[in-house]
């Protein structure tokens, strides 16, 4: 299904790719210092929300994703701080621990579907999060205060990764590779099976697909990259606490995904980028700090009422504005639709 179809889209794609690289490379230099900080967190959140989308492909919506990000953050922070594991390796450990935990959680959680899964994932996440807070485990997780002075990403040659611009480039590379993997998974046989489980799970089972194993696989991959995002966060900010991964953060992940739309690969990315700019740049500069949650709430309601497909639904329309209505149906299709 990934045979080169014809020459011209590849050239267009190549030019698009080069443009994207140039934009991503130049972007931080066009921003103010504080916007550079926001940009780093934004790139991390892109990975977070894209990893979330992978699980939604199977039709399941989890409320544990923020906590799983926290698992990656805690594991990576503890590995590097207490066991002196080099930070890049600790990050991989953090992501793996998050993935392994998802593997364990699969056994109870995937006995359920849909709404029950949603609620059960919430409960499982909260149990994990409360154990970080619990006074009897303070010696390990630091209690409500969490873990401070997490070792930063080590300098590479003369590159100081404390500088937001450098850490941004690091994150862009890590996130780009991760997104590529997520994309390949989605377009592979496995990804198609996820879709099949979502829309026709009984049918999929009847033709011999072990739906439990595929759900578990999606959950584990999704958790691995959420954990990686958590690790990237922990070693940048240098401090984590249980509150950072609470249900409020989970709500933000949900909002990004839903306002952006989850039908396409780029939908959640549009969501997180647009809402971060709205929240951190536009609303803050208006000096209406106390009213920011209300704006956010209103945007959410408007989006869900009037753009049920999310912001991604606007992309083809905008395209049409520039190119006119598509004459050849195939051309306006997005990459993900084209392979479906």
């Amino acid at each position: 299904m990934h045979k080169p179809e014809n020459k011209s889209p590849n050239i267009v794609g190549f030019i698009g790719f080069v443009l994207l690289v140039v934009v991503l490379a130049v972007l931080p230099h066009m921003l103010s210092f504080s916007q550079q900080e926001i940009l780093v967190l934004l790139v991390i959140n892109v990975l977070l929300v894209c990893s979330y989308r992978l699980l939604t492909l199977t039709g399941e919506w989890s409320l544990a994703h923020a906590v799983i990000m926290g698992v990656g953050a805690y594991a990576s922070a503890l590995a590097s701080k207490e066991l002196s594991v080099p930070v890049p390796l600790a990050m991989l450990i953090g992501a793996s621990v998050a993935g392994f935990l998802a593997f364990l959680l699969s056994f109870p959680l995937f006995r359920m579907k849909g709404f029950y899964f949603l609620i059960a994932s919430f409960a499982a996440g909260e149990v994990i999060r409360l154990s970080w807070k619990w006074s009897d485990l303070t010696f390990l997780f630091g209690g409500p205060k969490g873990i401070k002075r997490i070792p930063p990403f080590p300098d590479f040659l003369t590159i100081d990764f404390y500088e937001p611009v450098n850490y941004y480039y690091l994150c862009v590379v890590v996130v780009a590779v991760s997104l590529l993997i997520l994309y390949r998974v989605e377009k592979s046989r496995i990804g198609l099976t996820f879709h099949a489980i979502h829309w026709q799970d009984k049918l999929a089972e009847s033709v011999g697909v072990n739906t439990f194993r595929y759900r578990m696989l999606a959950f584990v991959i999704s958790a691995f990259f959420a954990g990686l995002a958590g690790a990237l966060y922990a070693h940048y900010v240098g401090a984590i606490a249980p509150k950072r991964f609470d249900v409020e953060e989970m709500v933000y992940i949900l909002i990004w995904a839903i306002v952006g739309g989850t039908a396409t690969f780029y939908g959640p990315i549009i969501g997180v980028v647009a809402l971060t700019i709205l929240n951190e740049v536009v609303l803050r500069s208006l000096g209406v700090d106390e009213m920011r949650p209300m704006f956010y709430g209103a945007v959410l309601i408007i989006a869900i009422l009037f753009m049920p497909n999310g912001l991604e639904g606007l992309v083809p329309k905008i395209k049409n504005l520039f190119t006119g209505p598509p004459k050849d149906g195939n051309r306006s299709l997005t990459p993900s639709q084209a392979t479906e």
Partner: protein
Amino acid sequence: MTSKFTISRRDFLSTTAAATVMAGVSMPKIAFGADDVVKIGFLAPLTGEVAAWGKPGLDGCQIWADWVNADGGVKIGDKAYKVEFVPYDDEYDPSKARTGAVKLIKEVGVKFVMMLGGDPWPGAAPIAEKEQMLFSTLLPSDLSPETTLLVAPCEVHPIYNVTGVEWLAEKKPELKTAVICAQDDSLGKPSVATYLAAFEAAGIEVLGKPIFFDPATTDFAPIMSKMLALKPDIVCLDTCYADYVHPLVEQAFQQGFKGQMISCTADFYQKMVEKTSKEFMEGFVFQFPDFDDPALNAEHVNFRKPNDFYAEFVKRFGAGEWSAVSWEYASIMDLWADAAGRAGTTEPVKVLEAMQVGGTGKQAFGEADWWGKELFGIDNALVGLWPVVKITDGKARIQEFKSIPAWWDKHKDLLIKHMTALDQMYFQRG
């Protein structure tokens, strides 16, 4: 006389907004600022659940700025500077605090940043280090040897709690036993250690283990039942948010407690009197005076015009709004303005040097020592006298100013022992 240099708040806000927008679209490498205004960052939670410890402090600062600016500003070197507070909402989150610190320091060009401290501080700490910026916190548990540019110049929570217990033991030697409950977080823990040390020093036995409760607790009846079942002479509420002090006190009243109560704070205590009774609240001991207290006019008190400040605060925001944080950020500004004046510059490192010259400083309640080496690993906490406040006939009145260093000299081993047991020493903290 200063008409030439007067910049109205509105003008200032609009220029700041314009500058912010410009910073967004252009290369932002120029720090914006007029020569005769010194900007102070206010990096604290302004929205969300912890906002109650940020927003009222900003209100108090506004009074401070209006007074100082009406007087012509702060004299630094041969110039008078108007003071302008630039707030940034850190949402009590370390990553937002980091972003805010970068914005305030590198874009707005502030010369000093005041924080509430706690969870957000570790996010801002490396920025303080890198940009050589002076920061202040209300929570000295943020202090550590690595962070030389962070000071706790007003409230050295929770060490001053020893004064209340010491005073109580002197005045009411018949009280022999106590129970403690505390919120299970970075505010409650070190405070529990302090009370345990203070009770031990005073020869008062603490019954049972301290009871930690989750900040998400909605009903305090079970906690109070548990405490009262131990039949204590003293119920100690440790350092709790007002949201918890009120229902705890109400429960103590409802469940028929007749003994002594002691707490770090009793914000909005008039409401507690309303909820219980004057008789019940009689003798309640805590540590935060109303600033209309005549005792604050004593010679040694450095906070300027405390009674007028209280009156102005009540006039602007209402009598029920006065709380512990209303005056604290403003008192830190007194200290900063004094130090900057003596340093002759707003340069943060120079101001800090001037602040700490001679190892003493003018803390709000009197001359105090820069202290903390043994507890925080650094002498960046300003410790001296602290008031013991008692409710008498429904009104809080200062009973006595007691010396924290005097207690420390006698009982420091106890405090270190209990702090260590609860993992609160600087070398144990994360």
